[in-house]
């Protein structure tokens, strides 16, 4: 695990983000309500620049015609096909009631995934002497 100092914590206020290249990987660092998180900047769908997407909330409904929006700013929506991921965990938002997925005799290649969408890789972020440190 390497430590990467990416800047000063004070320069990344809540709701803001920073996208940097670390060890050849593009990574987005987010301040969500005062806490820092880092995500790989590559959507698990078709590889789009996830961390350049829109910060959104979670749209839910109890029945057709009712809409609620919660958790504003905690979810990143990919600029391409709008897949959403929880910034804090990298988990894909869609298909929360994950059903069992058939297993297949196929070779796994990087590409559009079958079944349940993959989560996005996350990295630990710590603040040390006012500096943001990404661990990867």
């Amino acid at each position, binding site marked *: 695990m390497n430590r990467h100092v990416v800047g000063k914590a004070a320069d990344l206020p809540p709701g803001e983000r920073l*996208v940097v*290249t670390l060890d050849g990987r*593009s990574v987005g660092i987010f301040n969500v309500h005062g806490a820092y998180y880092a995500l790989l900047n590559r959507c698990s769908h*078709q590889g789009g620049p996830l961390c*350049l997407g829109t910060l959104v909330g979670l749209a839910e409904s109890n029945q057709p015609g009712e809409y609620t929006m919660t958790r504003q700013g905690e979810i990143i929506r990919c*600029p391409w096909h709008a897949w959403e991921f929880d910034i804090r965990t990298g988990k894909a938002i869609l298909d929360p009631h994950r059903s069992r*997925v058939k297993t297949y005799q196929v070779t796994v290649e990087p*590409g*559009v995934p079958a*079944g349940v969408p993959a989560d996005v890789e996350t990295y630990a972020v710590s603040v040390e002497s006012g500096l943001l440190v990404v661990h990867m």
Partner: protein
Amino acid sequence: MARVLPESEESTRPKTTQLIIDADAHHTVSLKDLRPYLSDYWNHFIDNTGVAGIPSNPYPKTGHGGIRTDSIPPSGGRPGSNYEFMRQQLLDEWNISYAILNSNFQMLALLPHTDFAIALASATNRWTKEHWLARDPRLLASIVIPAQDAEASAQEIERWAHDRQFVQILLPSSSDKPYGHRRYHPIYAAAANHGLPIGIHLGGATASTPPPSPNGWFSFYIEFHAIGGALSMMTHMASLVCEGVFSKWPDLQVVMMEGGFGWIPSVMWRLDKDWKGMKHEVPWVTRRPSEYIRAHFHFTTQPIEEPEDPAHLQQIVDMIGNDKFFLFATDYPHWDFDAPDRALMPLRKDLRPKILYENAKELYRL
């Protein structure tokens, strides 16, 4: 918003060395751009009426009106309106040998005012030539035509048929009649005369078109996006075959864009089955409908279907039964863009270079 530190050298190299022809990309025109290409009369018409554009699809679309939200040019303007940014983000980033530009003004074919449509079509093609094609030999385009007037459309085709950067005719999937109907035949005559394919590209439903489904208007964009295009394309496919367009023009090719393709085997089977007993109704259809479909149609792959079991996608391709059938497209800069290095992964390895490059190279004679 997002502070992005400069990319490393490595990430600005093309993402793949595979040769790619993008069979469907979009350069963005606005009415303002066309004014230098319109007569005094039409400029007066625009000033007097205050018309700002052509009617658009009433469904509010995900992604700021249906675009990749990372495709907004840094220097401003709408996605697809800036050549330098398109060159960087599409042509250079993906090692694109050729990209075929299909105009956002294709829907002028549904304007009630035919003469305005004729003027706009001519202006759009001239603007495309000067501001896009002339700047980059990798850029090709479809000829926009005022399809509501087939004779005027044939004349517009004649104007551009000699230009090797104009590689096909553009029709929107929205129309007042299915495209096999005789009213459109002068268009096919002109296209066939010059060996140009007919491109039918997804068009939205607007204030001046029929509704997007046979049962009226969907409520949501997701419904329109998932099946609206396919409904139109199915209609046109059946019509072109059954009205005998390929009997009249045996060399005519049709390219369907953004209509999906998972439904094609079902349509082939249904038409073939019915044809066996109903050939007397359309006696000019002398071969099985599926043979015409296989021989005369091509489909762009975007937005590619993503079945839960990826093997099913190859099965659909096998059912259609023609390795030359598919043409890869990105649909840049729209939100449902397909990435060239990922979208075709479920398909057989040997098919991918054909779909990414060779099929389009052969069809468009590049």
